[in-house]
């Protein structure tokens, strides 16, 4: 048997925008085991419900994570609205859907860039992020913010998208689609990229279920599960089928995410066409009393929110389980037996969001 040694990976590492630490037990160049330690970004955000009023907490919930900030705020509002039995206007539901899908586009483009950087293809990284700036510009035009939007409120949304802005958004999506098609060719057909991604870090369908993974990481292993099919917000009116792939390797994960960007673009187009006129918010009265759990499909997978309120202006308990937390056991499984040089790439393929995980 070869000598075993331990290599520390992180918390500060060039491919990681966020800190996570892995102790990699290796035999020669092969990883035998990976032992994670987390907590570098833990802020104790859930405890803030005791200090901020339930209407103010929307802005704290958004700051769970800067990438899926919109969805965190939206889901918190959704849970409180259920407790207070407030039915939000249809237009607000459509607006939330549009912003949620835009978040997915921006998150997946960000991930594609990081992946390209991970396997050392810097111009592809730059191209992905250049395209991503277009969607950020549209976020800025419609909400006023680039990463933190603060457009959710309990009972609806704070801002409307008028027709001229909507046309501008749709035009921008056309550009994005065109440019994305060009780089998709490189991501899916280029020999270098294929060599780095094909057959690396295979997670079988059985493992994906047993380890309770979520999101594109799970769907790349052939499991057909997408929380959007439960029909929250406007998804019940929109036509789409979850995107899956069979292979379960890094290439499949890349393929699923790229196709999800195209799907999101189509969903926004469809939602824009069907969006009804009307109010964007329902006024609320009183304080929430009761409990509710919300499940939404974030760019990284299923996120679970639990809110318990006791009739005062402060929420009693707020709990989030995020997709990256669910995907960590799956990641550790794929790391076993991989080459040391593939570790940064495999860590990236689950699209880790450490801020979400640790809150």
């Amino acid at each position, binding site marked *: 048997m070869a000598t075993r040694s331990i290599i520390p990976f992180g918390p500060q590492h*060039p491919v990681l*925008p966020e800190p996570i630490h892995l102790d990699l037990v290796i035999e020669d160049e092969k990883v035998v085991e990976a032992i994670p330690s987390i907590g570098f970004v833990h802020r104790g955000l859930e405890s803030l419900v005791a200090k901020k009023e339930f209407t103010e907490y929307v802005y704290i919930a958004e700051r769970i994570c800067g990438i899926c*900030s919109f969805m965190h705020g939206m889901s918190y509002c959704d849970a409180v609205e259920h407790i207070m039995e407030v039915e939000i206007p249809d237009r607000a539901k459509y607006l939330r859907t549009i912003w949620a899908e835009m978040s997915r586009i921006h998150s997946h483009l960000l991930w594609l860039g990081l992946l390209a950087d991970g396997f050392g293809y810097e111009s592809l990284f730059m191209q992905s992020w250049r395209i991503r700036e277009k969607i950020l510009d549209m976020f800025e035009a419609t909400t006023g913010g680039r990463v933190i939007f603060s457009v959710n409120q309990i009972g609806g949304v704070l801002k409307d998208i008028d027709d001229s802005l909507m046309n501008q958004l749709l035009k921008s999506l056309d550009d994005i689609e065109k440019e994305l098609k060009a780089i998709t060719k490189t991501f899916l057909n280029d020999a270098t990229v294929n060599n780095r991604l094909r057959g690396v870090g295979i997670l079988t369908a059985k493992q994906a279920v047993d380890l309770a993974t979520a999101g594109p990481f799970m769907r790349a292993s052939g499991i057909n599960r997408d929380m959007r099919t439960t029909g929250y917000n406007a998804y019940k009116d929109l036509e789409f089928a979850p995107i899956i792939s069979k292979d379960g390797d890094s290439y499949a994960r890349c393929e699923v995410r790229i196709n999800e960007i195209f799907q999101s673009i189509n969903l926004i187009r469809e939602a824009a066409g069907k969006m009804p006129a009307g109010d964007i918010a329902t006024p609320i009265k009183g304080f929430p009393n009761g409990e509710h759990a919300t499940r939404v499909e974030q760019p990284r997978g299923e996120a679970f929110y639990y809110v318990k309120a006791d009739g005062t202006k402060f929420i009693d308990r707020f709990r989030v389980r995020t997709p990256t937390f669910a995907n960590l056991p799956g990641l550790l499984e794929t790391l076993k037996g991989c080459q040391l040089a593939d570790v940064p790439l495999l860590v990236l393929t689950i699209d880790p969001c450490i801020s979400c995980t640790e809150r």
Partner: protein
Amino acid sequence: MAKVSKSPWVLHYDGASCNGCDIEVLACLTPMYDAERFGVINTGDPKHADIFLVTGGINEQCKDVVKQLYEQMPNPKVVVAVGICACTGGVFKETYNILGGVDTVIPVDVYVPGCAARPESIIDGIVKGIAVLDQKREAMKQGKLPELNVEDISEDGKEQASANEAQNAEAETTANAGEESK
């Protein structure tokens, strides 16, 4: 704008932020904002870095990592606190785990406010950092040793935090004044 005399390499670390400022730091390096036109390269190695960009309000666990990274950087070095959490602790200031700002663990030279800090202001912060870097380099040439004040900062970050608040407010006003004058 300060004269850019050398190409500063930056090191970026997320000290318990929400990730918003981190992706904006990365966005600075990509074609739209392109900080590389000032010679800025993002490096993963503290030994190669001149400017240390820290985001987030620093929690108990990453405190030592931030200190270590700072100590590993060669002199002269500049610390830029990116985002309101890095400046004061921001919305997370009242939580049990956040010390409240980067200056509770290492000395900070430039404060970049904002939630999330916009790429324009981050680049502005880096450029201001370059001026500080030049000053420090000059001081080193004249034989003045850089201050090693990591140890001066008390172990109990919370106590220090209140003392730093006044300083922060001052720094923010100077940053804002700088923006207005442009």
